[in-house]
């Protein structure tokens, strides 16, 4: 029913996905994006657009209940994002790093 953003987004946050999403269902935290499960229409456009493969359908084995819950929870409190901003300056260094959940920030996105 929805696509879900996983750990790989944390501290990478390239935001290419938000530009191609036809329904503007991305919400932005300080160092990660999430997808609103009730706004996503499963069109699949965002998935190949993510440079770090952080977006998967909720049917994907990597999409555990914790990630479904995190997307659902924070999409209701973070601001909607519709245009790509500037990724973190050290985004490339965090690409592929394991255990990034420890770096997750619950704070909302700020310019």
């Amino acid at each position: 029913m929805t696509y879900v953003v996983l750990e790989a987004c944390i501290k990478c946050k390239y935001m290419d996905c938000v530009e191609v999403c036809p329904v503007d269902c991305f919400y932005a935290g300080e160092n990660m994006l999430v997808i609103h499960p009730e706004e996503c229409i499963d069109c699949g456009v965002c998935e190949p657009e993510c440079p770090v493969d952080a977006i998967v359908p909720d049917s994907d084995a990597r999409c555990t209940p914790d990630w479904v819950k995190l997307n659902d929870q924070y999409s209701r409190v973070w601001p909607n994002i519709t245009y790509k901003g500037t990724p973190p300056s050290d985004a490339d260094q965090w690409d592929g790093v394991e255990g990034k959940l420890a770096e997750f920030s619950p704070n909302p996105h700020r310019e």
Partner: protein
Amino acid sequence: MSQTEPLRPRIGPGVHVGVTEPMIREVVHAFYSRVRADEALGPIFEREIEGEWDAHLAKLCDFWSSVLLMTGRFKGTPMVVHARLTEIGGDHFARWLGLFRQTAEELCPPPAAALFVARSQMIAQSLQLGIAVSRGEVPEFSP
């Protein structure tokens, strides 16, 4: 947050199977002609789109362009729009999908038609689930 630079060109999934803007336009226009003539779907669409068919067709061309060619032209909230239509159910979606498949298969080469159909089915399933959630018929999510 504002758009600072134009959307960079992207290669959407439709490019590899020969989907073009004229093809999308042809499918969308032919499809909605059939929808309008359908005894179950026609009255609902005529009521909802009344007097604004040109704008609706342009919007749907933008939608499919965004989905298949990744042009980013469509921005909208289809879940909200469909969720407020209280009378639509599984049979409406099945008819819609049947007409869409028929149209795509008649007008497009098989690989392009298959992509149209696959995406239409994913999106329809998602909209149906979203509608069910909004009606309180299923839990919001069930991890």
